[in-house]
């Protein structure tokens, strides 16, 4: 009999080996796609903390992503700030915004949570769009240089940048795993299951939800930093509702509350987006169909399917 745990662990190890060994043999295009997948994987995992574990689906998660991406863009192109300065400012500002927003959303749940996060996310988009002197408005900011880490390896090279992103991805995965399995993380799951019961048990559920929201925002900020460096270009599109919605769907598709599932969801969506669109201009239709099928037949996402598939061979 194969336990779910063993399936997961062996899957993760296999994926990890693939992600480390395979890339040098890939053409540079697939390397950039893989890099993108990891970046959005981080973002999808951070949203999973809210959606999957805390049970608070958010429509404004791209806001923090956008904030840190814009910080990197502005600081590195206009003020020539170094790598550490950019990253620290980007991360702290994204976290600060999350801390501020958290005050406004932590009490809400369900549709109200969706609506408030949507509105707050739009505020960041609005800033990116209208604060033209700072953000360049709809033009976005181009020409962001790859970071100089002060080591002989140049991140201009796609393969080294890929490994850099992979390194961050693994750290984030590790940290989030610890976070989720800590007593604090478990309390978030408790809140998802029954907030009133948690309150009666003596938990300060507001504070827990608030901190959960801030942590999710901070990790989303990390992915924004990587994105700015990867893409070399940021625009209001990075912070808009569609972006938030896309991560939302990555989580749904991958399987909420599975952490690694949403990263898989990110992989599928980015792959489809880049692959199908080369063959048909109706690619949105195909992605739409996949969502519908997922919701109808695999509400637990790809993760659930995968586990069912792996277990299926060995009749329990």
């Amino acid at each position, binding site marked *: 009999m*194969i336990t779910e745990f*063993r*399936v997961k662990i*062996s*899957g993760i190890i*296999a*994926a990890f080996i*693939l992600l480390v060994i*395979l890339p040098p043999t*890939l*053409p*540079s*295009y*697939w390397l*950039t796609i893989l890099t993108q997948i990891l970046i959005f994987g981080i973002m999808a995992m951070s949203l999973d903390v809210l959606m999957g574990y805390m049970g608070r689906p958010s429509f404004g998660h791209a806001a923090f992503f956008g904030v840190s991406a814009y910080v990197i863009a502005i600081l590195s192109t206009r003020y020539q700030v170094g790598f550490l300065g950019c990253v620290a400012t980007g991360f702290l500002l994204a976290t600060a915004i999350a801390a501020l927003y958290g005050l406004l959303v932590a009490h809400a749940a369900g549709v109200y949570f969706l609506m408030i996060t949507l509105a707050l996310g739009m505020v960041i988009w609005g800033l990116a*769009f209208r604060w*033209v*002197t700072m953000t360049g*408005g*709809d*033009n*976005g900011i*181009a*020409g962001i240089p790859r970071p100089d880490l002060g080591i002989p390896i140049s991140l201009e090279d796609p393969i080294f940048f890929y490994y850099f992103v992979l390194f961050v991805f693994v750290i984030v995965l590790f940290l989030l795993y610890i976070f989720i399995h800590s007593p604090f993380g478990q309390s978030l799951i408790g809140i998802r299951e029954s907030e009133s019961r948690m309150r009666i048990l003596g938990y300060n559920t507001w504070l827990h939800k608030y901190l959960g929201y801030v942590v999710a925002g901070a990790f989303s900020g990390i992915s924004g930093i990587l994105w700015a460096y990867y*893409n*070399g*270009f*940021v*625009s209001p*599109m*990075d912070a808009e509702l569609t972006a938030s919605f896309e991560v939302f769907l990555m989580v749904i598709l991958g399987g909420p509350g599975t952490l690694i599932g949403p990263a898989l969801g990110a992989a599928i969506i980015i792959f489809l987006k*880049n*692959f199908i*669109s*080369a063959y048909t*201009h109706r690619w*949105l239709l195909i992605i739409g169909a996949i969502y519908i099928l997922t919701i109808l037949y695999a509400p637990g996402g790809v993760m659930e399917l*995968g586990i069912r*598939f*792996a277990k*299926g*061979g060995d009749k329990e």
Partner: protein
Amino acid sequence: MKKVFLFCAIVVLAIGIAAMPASSLAKGKGPIKIGFIGPLTGHAAQTGRDMLAGMQLFLIDQDWEVAGRKIKLITEDTEAKPAVALTKVRKLVEKDGVHVLIGGLMASTGYALMPYVDKKKVPAMYVIMASDDLTQRKPGKYMVRTGWSSSQPSHPFGVYAAKELGLRKVVTIGYDYAFGWEVVGGFQRTFEDAGGRIIQKLWTPVGTMDYGPYLGRISKDADAVFALFFGSGALQFVKQYKQYGLKDKMTLLGGGTTTDESVLPSMGDEAIGTITTLHYSGALDTPENKKFAKAFRAYAGKVASYYGEGPYTGGKWIIEAIKAIDGNVEDREKFLKALKTLKLTGAPRGPYELDKFGNPVQNIYIRKVERVGGELQNTVIKTYPKVSQFWTYDVDWYLKQPLYSRDYPPLKK
């Protein structure tokens, strides 16, 4: 457990297969690959379709072949968003290994692509993207501009509006990004130098679908309104301009895309009388354009537009350059040089040549929308020949001025 590894193996295989064509075709003399980008979905889809039709039309004429090599056109949809365009260009360059890029709609896309294109050293034909600064203060090395610069048609139009239309006070309204700022900025500079005054500037987000809130704010003191939109936004604005009762009170002027033939067939009588400016008109009465317009109508089933003419002429430009280097597009420096030094005659839009900054010096047409034979058209009412991107200004002086932006030139108090 086994299944997990089986799954992994399948993934590896899939990636391998997907990645194969790029690496196996890179060597040897395969077809010449042209990467086309344009908005094929979204609010500007109609312009993108015209662009693609123009490009295909020319390549069909060529029988998809030049200098003994096949031509392969690979198209990608940008959704009229700079970030998407960048992603797609990355794919065209790195996966498909295209030899030259063509297309792109937004001026902002033009700016966003430039650092990447220069880094990858792939010649990029700017046939529509009109980002001013790329042939002015921040020249793009691998860009070949056969289209225009955003403010180029606006300069003569400002003079025309002040001197020949006798307008004094004008309100401008346009899309709030590089293209809008540059088109409006160019108009403002020459219009004010010629004695007119811009009394109000309004900006709307790209792709706005309801102009009511903006139309209500237009100052009643104005003699005319200068509007800059494209795609379905242009349709909607011109319609609402009439609905709000402004058409009878103030002349509607505009950048060329506001009444471009990509959307003109979908407009009604509300568009009649609108005066706009561009380096092309579908109704241009020259043998070259008549031939092109006829072929375009036969192929695309609609009237020819500047969005069709740009890629058509740009395609011709590419083909002539490839002929000049005997099909050896792999030698990128030589290819780029051939593209940059080419001289082309017989373009539908009229005579043109590149100035030393790489921007065309070409005719600018002042056009008025009329209904002829049941169909709306941009009748040319005045031609300014050989207009440079700097108009009549001193080049050094011009380049020292800031790039046209949201707040430059400022409103005069």
